[in-house]
């Protein structure tokens, strides 16, 4: 098998990755792999018979750039709330705690609410992107429909104007 990058040398490094829920395989020669910062030693995938899952798991263990997972045994870096504080008081200390203790909170929220996904109003901060804004427009449309149903025409007109304003901005 030839290298996917240079199409010249024999591929000796075989990588499998999951991107956007899709499995991708990459076969590289040693020099092209080195160019991508991958050493053949690290991947240990010098036979084509190696199952892709092993590659995947091996890749998980390999170092590389990825989002740092907060170590929740440490207190929240913003407000200093520790996991013990949280367990004791049943309250978190700040909005950063939701990022810091995300994993524990996600399962807790599922137990409390039967869900861990917000379905209500969206809030648009300054740093929001187009997806957020489109989401907010659809949430406002839903509320406008509701205002019409309940004959609150003043609120409906206000929402209509705001939706229009946001659509013009897009």
């Amino acid at each position, binding site marked *: 098998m030839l290298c996917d990058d240079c199409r010249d040398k024999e591929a000796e490094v075989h990588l499998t990755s999951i991107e956007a829920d899709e499995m991708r395989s990459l076969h590289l020669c040693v020099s092209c792999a080195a160019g991508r910062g991958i050493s053949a030693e690290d991947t240990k995938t010098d036979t084509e018979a190696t199952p892709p899952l092993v590659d995947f798991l091996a890749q998980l263990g390999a170092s590389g750039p990825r989002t740092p997972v907060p170590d929740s045994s440490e207190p929240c870096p*913003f407000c200093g709330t520790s996991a013990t504080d949280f367990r004791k008081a049943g309250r978190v200390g700040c909005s950063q705690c*939701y990022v810091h203790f995300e994993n524990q909170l996600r399962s807790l*929220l599922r137990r409390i609410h039967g869900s*861990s996904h*917000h379905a209500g109003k969206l*809030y648009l*901060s300054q740093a929001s992107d187009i997806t957020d804004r489109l989401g907010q427009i659809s949430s406002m449309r839903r509320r406008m429909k509701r205002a019409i149903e309940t004959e609150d025409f003043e609120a409906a007109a206000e929402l209509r104007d705001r939706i229009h304003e946001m659509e013009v901005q897009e």
Partner: protein
Amino acid sequence: MIQSGVAVADRGLDWIRGGGEAEIVLSSRVRVARNLQGFPFPGRAGAEERADVVERIRAAADRAKSLDGGYFWDVDSLDPVDREILVERHLISRDLLADRMGPSSAALALASDTSCGVMVNEEDHLRLQALAGGLALDSAWRQVDRLDEEIGALLPLAFHHQFGFLTACPTNVGTGLRASVLIHLPGLVLTKEISKVLEGISQVGLTYRGLYGEGSEVVGNFFQVSNQTTLGKTEEDLIDHLERVTCKVIEYERGARSVLLTEAPSVLEDKVWRAYGILRTARSLGLGEMMNLLSGVRLGVSLKLLKSPRVETLNEVLVRGQLAHLELAAGASLGEQEADLCRATYVRDKLATDERDAGQAPADGSSDTTAADSPPSGG
């Protein structure tokens, strides 16, 4: 513009005039919990941060259209009786007054018609709330929603793309919305159907408690029913669900009342008139006793066994028969016994006035308010 430092006076009592289903549903309340970005939540914040949060919210309240012409009170600088008055009117929670080291930096903003407001630095930086008489969840939600939009445009709020609005307690996260109705269910209590209904309420994701909120005992057959979860559903779904269940409970309550009227009319009538008689003539009245008797009278008014008092008067007595309100009226702090005397006098007076207006035969057999009915000095 909002005004600071004005007297609390009668503000925040508009709900007592009632609304739809007012004989059974006393009031509807909707609140949403919100926090500011970049500040620890109040329980974790230092005194300076808490004070800073109050100032930012005061500035936003000053510009919010819904609060135009309204009021702003720093809870720390309020007279202790006024503070208690706000608690008794359910405008601030007792937690807001919890003993802290140093100033609590808690505050309350209220719209000019006092139908909606903002509690500042309770468990969360902001608790936006609306209170309406009778069953009016939808209009209460619309008011809160509007206020939320206004405040959210003026202050950056803590929001997570997946978890929604972030709150100190994970039980409030997501919509941050708690909608509740204060509902009077003597028929279901007397027919012993209440436990089945309450069990049903719990099974459909709602919860109930007493008149004074979390952990409080149920007195006078008044139940506060609210949504239990806040995440994973839209605000409208939560409101609709509570409204639908409330309507069902009202239907059961009406059913129970008609069973009582058909099967035990004299027992029911006796109960109602005894309650009225005691309230109308007693010289000393404890708070719990007053609540239980008001329940009997409310049932009698609703079933037209009594011509008076009006539902509005009954609502008002529920509020003004509490300790801080009696102290405010008396202009002095009251011991338990004195409070019971003042309460009895106040209730007798209120019922006598409505009785005269309605032309109802007085319960005490006298032709009109007797000399003994006039309030003792200080009452």
